[in-house]
Every structure is written in structure tokens, then in C-alpha cells.
């Protein structure tokens, strides 16, 4: 055990280290930092503290969730006839809207926002309207609880779908990849009840809707991706189901989720 006092990391090293932890460095700069980390124990200790702080923050500090009331007010500002925004005053603590009314108003907003250019992703002639999947995701976010069954355990979620819908989509937990399972929900897509698995990404939710397509198999084709109303949407063919993922995470993050999910489903 040496008694030498470790030299403190220089200020620039600290900035580089933070940028490294934040994934903001290009490959060559990241490589430089990794080499420094191996050679410099005090820098390495600093790195471990930063990683520890990050995981504590992820676990302990959540993004706030806008209340139904606040969301509804903002939707109302965008709605037809909203020539002026509502007056700026302390909102009342009383919930004046039933969720059904609210869902209806949001559905209207979703249709208005899509400007009538509904996107269709066609499979074998059977169209699935992406807009309705996005609207369902949005409705779920508005509801008091975005989940019908809340569980991080796929062995709870899968039987729940079985019992509720007599459908058994693959339920995969991607906690190790940073997308922990949060639970499940029943959605209505094209007039059918279909299962949706809900995953968390930091403070965001990802809805993964499985639309039955019996006899289909994973064609291995690339997932299609689009955005609608600011939500990222990805769709692909899986075994017996067509899958649609929708979320307010960045499109490349959603693409990473899809890639992990498909890899795990094999």
C-alpha cells in the first residue's frame, strides 16, 4: 500500500470524464479516456463515483408526470375554437373531467394533429392504422394508471394476457438492456382487443402493441419507423404477431429498443 497522496484529476480531465459518462465523446476521444482510466486510479475512482451518482439518480429521482388536468389544458389550447389560450390562473384542485371525456378530446386532438394524413402500414392487405396506436398510447398516458397490470415480471404479464384475451404474445424483459418491463395493457386497434406490453426507459414509457397475424413468422425484415404527433413509431413482423412500438423517446432510442427486443425474441 503506497502512502503517496493521489494527484487530483485536472479540471479538463473531469470535464472529459463527465462527457464520457454522458456518451458525448466520439470514438477516438472515448478511447483516450478509457486508456487514461486504466492508467490513473484517482481518475478511475472519480469515474466510479460518477457512475454511482448516475445510477442513484436514475433510481431515486423521476421525471415529473404532467397531471391529466394539465395535459388536458394544453390539449384544449391546441383544440379547434381555442382562439386564445385559457386564462393563466392557479388550476383548481378538483378534477372536472372524466377520463372518457378527456380521452375523447385527446383523440380529436390526435386526429387534428395528424392533419388527416393517417399513416398506414399495410401487411397482407390488412391495414393497421398507426394513428390509432399512437392515440391509444397517448390515451394510456392520460389515464390515471397507464397500465392494466403492473408488474416487472414477465411470468405475471404473459398469463394475464392469456386470461384476458386468450392471446399469448412473447413477453420479454429487457431490464438488462435498460428497458425494464413495467406491465401490460389491453388496447383497441382496428376494432380488435390486442395486448400491449409497456416498458420503461428512464421516465418514459414505451408501448409495444402486438396485433395478431396468425401463421405469420418473423421475416427478418428491417423495422419500419416513422414519427407521428411527435411520437416515434416502429413496426415489424414477428412470429404470429405484427408489432408496433410507440414512445416519446428519441427515434434512435426506440430503434435500439426494437433491435434488443427482436434479438431477445429469437
Amino acid at each position, binding site marked *: 500500500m503506497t502512502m503517496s*497522496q*493521489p494527484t487530483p484529476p485536472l*479540471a479538463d480531465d*473531469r*470535464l472529459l*470524464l*463527465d*462527457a464520457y459518462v*454522458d456518451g*458525448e465523446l466520439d470514438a477516438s476521444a472515448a478511447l483516450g479516456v478509457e486508456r487514461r482510466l486504466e492508467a490513473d*486510479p*484517482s481518475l*478511475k*475512482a*472519480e469515474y*466510479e*463515483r*460518477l*457512475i*454511482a*451518482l*448516475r*445510477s*442513484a*439518480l436514475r433510481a*431515486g*429521482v*423521476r*421525471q*415529473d*408526470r*404532467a*397531471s391529466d388536468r*394539465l*395535459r388536458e*389544458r*394544453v*390539449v384544449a*389550447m*391546441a*383544440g*379547434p375554437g381555442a*382562439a*386564445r*389560450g*385559457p386564462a*393563466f390562473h*392557479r*388550476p383548481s384542485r378538483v378534477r372536472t373531467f372524466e377520463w372518457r371525456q378527456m380521452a375523447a378530446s385527446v383523440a380529436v*386532438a390526435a386526429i*387534428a*394533429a395528424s392533419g388527416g394524413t393517417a399513416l398506414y402500414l399495410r401487411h397482407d392487405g390488412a391495414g393497421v392504422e398507426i394513428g390509432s396506436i399512437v392515440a391509444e398510447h*397517448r390515451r394510456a398516458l392520460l389515464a390515471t394508471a397507464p397500465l392494466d397490470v403492473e408488474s416487472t415480471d414477465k411470468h405475471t404479464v404473459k398469463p394475464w394476457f392469456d386470461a384476458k384475451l386468450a392471446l399469448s404474445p412473447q413477453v420479454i424483459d429487457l431490464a438488462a438492456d435498460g428497458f425494464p418491463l413495467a406491465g401490460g395493457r389491453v388496447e383497441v386497434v382496428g376494432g380488435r382487443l390486442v395486448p400491449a406490453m409497456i416498458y420503461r426507459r*428512464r*421516465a*418514459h414509457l414505451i408501448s409495444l402493441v402486438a396485433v395478431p397475424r396468425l401463421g405469420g413468422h418473423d421475416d427478418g425484415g428491417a423495422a419500419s419507423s416513422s414519427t407521428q*404527433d*411527435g*411520437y416515434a413509431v416502429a413496426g415489424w413482423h414477428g412470429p404470429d404477431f405484427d408489432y408496433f412500438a410507440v414512445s*416519446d423517446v428519441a427515434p434512435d432510442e426506440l430503434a435500439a429498443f426494437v433491435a434488443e427486443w427482436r434479438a431477445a425474441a429469437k
Partner: protein
Amino acid sequence: MADERQRQQFAEVVLPHLDAALSLARWLTGSLADGEDVVQEACIRALAGIGTLRDGSPRAWVLTIVRNTAFSWLRKNRPKALVVTDDDSVFEAADLASMDRGATQNPEALLIAKADADLLNSAIAALPLNFKEILVLREIDGLSYREIAEVVSLPIGTVMSRLSRARKLLIVTIGRSRNEAQGAA
């Protein structure tokens, strides 16, 4: 007055980032109710100013408006909270405190990782405002450095140094509370 197309654009741009907006406003004002007021006011401004939306990050555009609205609110309602600091003395103490456990293998990291939510929340709340906003934008709202620089209108270098210092302060605060807890035991 916003026309139909502008209101559509407003909904597309603002709704996906409402949680991020509320988080920023809540942390800057210090309370959920005040944060909601600020978000509503910011939305009115965003709708009125939707024509100023340019290519680039819509999220940064929304949060810029929320931040500016929050600062207006603070000026009016909490002028004392607006004392911003770039004072190095806050951080010199932090440097010293974190150095006394330099290179030894790191049980400390484990304790930081296990810091409880109350402690983290109060440590963030205690950060000087101009450090807090950058930490919240990065760690809670998940913005990139470039987006943060846009929101707070500062060079990226300043964003990086404030973020780094904010984290260091949190680490020291957590370490200190642990030592106090041990002292009390």
C-alpha cells in the same frame, strides 16, 4: 392569433415534452403547483411564438420557453432565489472533500449508488439555480449537451463545467450525510 395549422404544430411539438417541461419548471420554482402554472404560461407563449420554431430540437425549443417563463416567474415571486452563483468557494470545499478518499478502492461508490431518494432530492434542491437547471436538463430530462447549451444560451464549455461541478456537489453532499449518519450512530 394562432391559426389551425399552427395549433396542430403546437400540439405536435409541445405534448410529447410536457413531462420534461413540468420537471424543469417544478425544480426551478421548487413546487409542483408553481411548476404547473409556469408550464401553462409557457404553453401560451409557445403557441403565440410557434412561428419562431426552427429546425433543430423541438424539445430544446420547448424547454427554452419553459426556462424563460420560470425565470420570469422567479423574478416576480421569488426574487431571492435568483441569486445565481459562479462562486468558486462553493466548489473548493467540494474539491477538498472529494479528494480525501482519492485512489483507494471504492466502497464509497457503492454508498453513493445506494443514496436514497429523499437525500438526492434535497441535494438537488440545494444546488445553486444555474447549476441545478443544467443538472435537471441532463439527468432528469435527458438532454444532450448541445440541447442544454441551446436552452440556457451558454457555450457548451460552460454547460460542461457547470454540470461537472453540480455532480461533484451532489457527490460531496451524499458523502457528508453518510458521515453524519455514522457520527450519529
